């Protein structure tokens, strides 16, 4: 795995306890399994993009992600997903997530799902096109293979139908 000289501390914002605990999940050695890889086949200015986030964003007109069940079952996370149309702003969304402070996203969706910024890049010709939909799921999935079937597979189908060629993922 190639690596530039390290300048980012991935644990900088974690309190000591969380930092120590999360480190127990991260191996010392580099990943040596299969990494899915598709080379970028055309310039950015011709590429169709979509955005995906695990921040628990939903439209106000859709059912919100289920926080109540997670409060009752600490290792359960909502496995569903939502399509977020590309013109959506913070005015049209709910944000539900028990592991981050959601206030900032509610004030500006672009802090995690940069639809506005990508639309600007599209109008300037820097990217080819932003696909009609972005997607949101709920990032807390504690050992759930069902999540792949219930969220990732339909998201992939949706993106394929919209001709998506590159995806930017922003985990919460």
């Amino acid at each position, binding site marked *: 795995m190639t690596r530039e000289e390290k300048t980012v501390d991935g644990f900088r914002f974690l309190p000591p*306890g969380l930092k*120590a605990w999360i480190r127990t999940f991260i191996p010392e050695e580099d990943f040596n399994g299969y990494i899915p890889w598709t080379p970028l086949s055309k310039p950015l200015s011709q590429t169709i993009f979509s955005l995906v986030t695990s921040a628990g964003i939903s439209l106000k007109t859709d059912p919100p992600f289920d926080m109540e069940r997670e409060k009752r079952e600490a290792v359960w996370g909502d496995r569903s997903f939502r399509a977020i149309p590309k013109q959506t702003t913070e005015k049209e969304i709910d944000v539900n997530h028990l592991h*981050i402070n959601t206030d900032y996203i509610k004030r500006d969706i672009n*802090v995690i799902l940069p639809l506005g910024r990508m639309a600007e890049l599209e109008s300037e010709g820097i990217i080819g096109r932003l696909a009609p939909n972005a997607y949101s799921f709920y990032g807390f999935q504690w050992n759930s293979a069902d999540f792949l079937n219930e969220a990732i597979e339909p998201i992939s189908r949706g993106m394929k139908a919209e001709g998506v060629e590159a995806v930017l993922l922003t985990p919460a």
Partner: protein
Amino acid sequence: MITPTYEFHRAVGIPRSAAIEYPYGRPLGQVGDKKGQREVLLQVLSFLEKAKKPGEVMFLPFRWPEDPKKTVWQPPEMSPLIKFYLEEIKQARQKESEKEKNK
């Protein structure tokens, strides 16, 4: 992927990781900072063009303006998971403190 904790790429096969030292929940930047968000995005897109091998990590140069100890990112109430594993978290912390002391 733009990620505050790029180290996860050692546990999961991530095609391209753009590592940014920003708090969870705001990987693109601050509320209302269109210029800053755009700069982050442009660098990530540039990485997408330049990355040649699976698993590459790019370290974005941006610095969060607040002291991390004062940066609000955690939920207002402790998550059910953290409550559930609180003892384990405390033990991990203790183990790490002992390791630091013995260095």
